């Protein structure tokens, strides 16, 4: 059972995506992570997909990940991870990458979901010192790769890649419906055992269609940030945003995938964000007051 303790006035998370480790760049990435940790002062690091993307050997992956995470290890900051589509393009299997990352010092392995087809779906509870029931749940989802994989897994006799799709024409997979149901059930189970709604933060790599629509509302007070490139999102909506809103428990839904887009907005009581990739920016997602939680995003 992973353990995270809420020790300060706020709980600070440094989510990172698109690190894109390879055999050559680990030292450079490590130095950037060290700077981010110094300025962000996080309690936890979330590797939110595309930590790997370029072809690497198992040995290179292990060495580069260990190098990257040296600053976190030295500062005593634990990390969790989830996979994006990049992990499926680096030439190593999910099992091998999972084994590499989970063997590194500071890795917190989530309670893994059993009934989903997401490899890295899981939860990490955050507790106050000396308390048994969680005050915050961090929920990680695997967003798979592209819709071709979705079709492969469920055997569509048709095609998902239409020239005029509902959302963006990048045909990405995302949080599927079976993963959404896992959240529904698990959230209810946690509420039943805790006797109250426990607030949650979601982290996953590929944005939802609802994320992609947020910049259409630039200029409204609830929107903050910029878009510098075309927005990309899941093609077949798995319903996770509406499920999160209906649950009344989700504080924020933090995604990545895009390189230079950097925006968030408040929608239906949730802060929904698309963070820039590792080389283009970083956020601290902090939660204040576990009894009356509010989420804040700082650009660092």
């Amino acid at each position, binding site marked *: 059972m992973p353990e995270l303790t809420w020790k300060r006035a706020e709980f600070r998370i440094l989510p990172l995506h698109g690190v894109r480790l390879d055999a050559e760049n680990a030292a450079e990435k490590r130095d950037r992570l060290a700077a981010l940790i110094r300025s962000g002062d996080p309690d936890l690091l979330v590797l939110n997909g595309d930590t790997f993307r370029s072809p690497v050997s198992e040995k290179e992956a292990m060495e580069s990940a260990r190098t990257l995470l040296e600053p976190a290890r030295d500062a005593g900051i634990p990390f969790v991870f989830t996979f994006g589509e990049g992990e499926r393009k680096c030439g190593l299997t999910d099992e091998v990458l999972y084994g590499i990352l989970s063997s590194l010092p500071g890795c917190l392995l989530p309670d893994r979901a059993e009934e989903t087809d997401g490899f890295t779906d899981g939860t990490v509870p955050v507790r106050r010192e000396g308390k048994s029931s969680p005050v915050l749940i961090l929920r990680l989802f695997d967003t798979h790769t592209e819709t071709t994989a979705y*079709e492969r897994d*469920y*055997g*569509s*006799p*048709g*095609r*998902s890649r*239409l*020239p*005029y*799709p*509902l959302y963006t024409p990048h045909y990405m997979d995302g949080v*599927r*419906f*079976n993963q*959404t*149901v896992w959240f*529904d059930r698990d959230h209810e189970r946690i509420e039943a055992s805790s006797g109250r709604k426990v607030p949650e933060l979601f982290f996953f790599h590929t944005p939802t*269609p*609802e994320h992609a*629509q*947020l910049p*259409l*509302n630039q200029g*409204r007070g*609830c929107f903050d940030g910029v878009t510098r490139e075309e927005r990309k999102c899941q093609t*077949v*909506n*798995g*319903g*996770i*945003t*509406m*499920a999160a*809103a*209906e649950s*009344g428990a989700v504080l924020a839904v933090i995604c990545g995938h895009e390189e230079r887009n950097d925006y968030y907005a*408040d*929608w*239906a*009581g949730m802060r929904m964000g698309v963070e820039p990739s590792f080389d283009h920016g970083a956020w601290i997602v902090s939660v204040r007051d576990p009894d009356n939680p509010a989420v804040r995003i700082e650009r660092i």
Partner: protein
Amino acid sequence: MEMDLKKETADRIRLTLDENGEFRVLFVSDFHAPSDRDWDERLPRAIGALLDHTKADLCVNLGDFISDGEMDSEDRFRRYVSAIAGPCETRGVPWCHVPGNHDHEEGLPTEVFAAHPHCISLRGPDSLPGYGTYMVPVHGSPDSDEPAFVIWLFDSHRGTGQWAEEYGITAPYDFAAATWGFDAGGGVYHAQARWYWERDLAMERRYGHKIPGIMGMHIPLQEHSLIPRNPSLTFMTGELEESAGVPAFNPGLFAAAYERGDISAIVSGHDHINSFAGKYMGIELSEDASLGYDVYGTDRLRGGRLITLKASDPMRPDSVHAYLKDCPGAGDFIFREGHDNA
């Protein structure tokens, strides 16, 4: 969760496949009767003509019975329901319904419908928001416990504000609709999509295999609008004369149906002058055009969607738009006044 089909479905009339292993479901919608005067007299005749022409085994009304939520008197409402139920009742055709966004719950009590012997509508589980989310099983034979098909029906509610109120959601919740062509008229909630998933899974556990089915609701899914955007690749048939009025939010129901792999068709109402159908990821998405005369519509498309479920090929039902103009004798009244209120 265990599955007890008898407790969860209407056992009033047992629907069964015919001697050819087929079952014909006619979806109609959008009658939009006025609240302060009687409905156009052609409506019941149109329903009867469609029933005769299609030889439907079940008629599913996908809502918007009334334009303004409720009628000005209970007597008028009871007479109206009797008038539109009449064609089914006199022919012995079972029928059921879901509410549309114009049908306020307080103005559309299900007991008025259920007073008719062939009505098999249900309110559905109390745990779900709204009313009219339920399943209708079609059995292979009169003595079979196991359904051969399931018709899943959903309340699609009235608007995003109603959704927000239901779940205590604070503003802003409406801006996702800004420029995507989606409207805020309502839609199936996520809780209902999950209900389908859980009950379908329970049924699979109960019977040892998936039960094929189709779905119906008043407001189309967002995915319905993919069909007219991509007519050739979705093998679109029928017509589009107004943009598909799909919801601002997506509950994941299409993804649920796709991942379960047992839904062949999803039929909606709501848009009055669309009769299109097309396939996306193996599931046919269609709209049934308005049959009503008291609202905008067109005689050219007036009709309903007929889906013929077949035991011989359960995931590939026949699906056609049944045009009223093709019904024998229908021309005697539908073109009587050159009526075209589009």
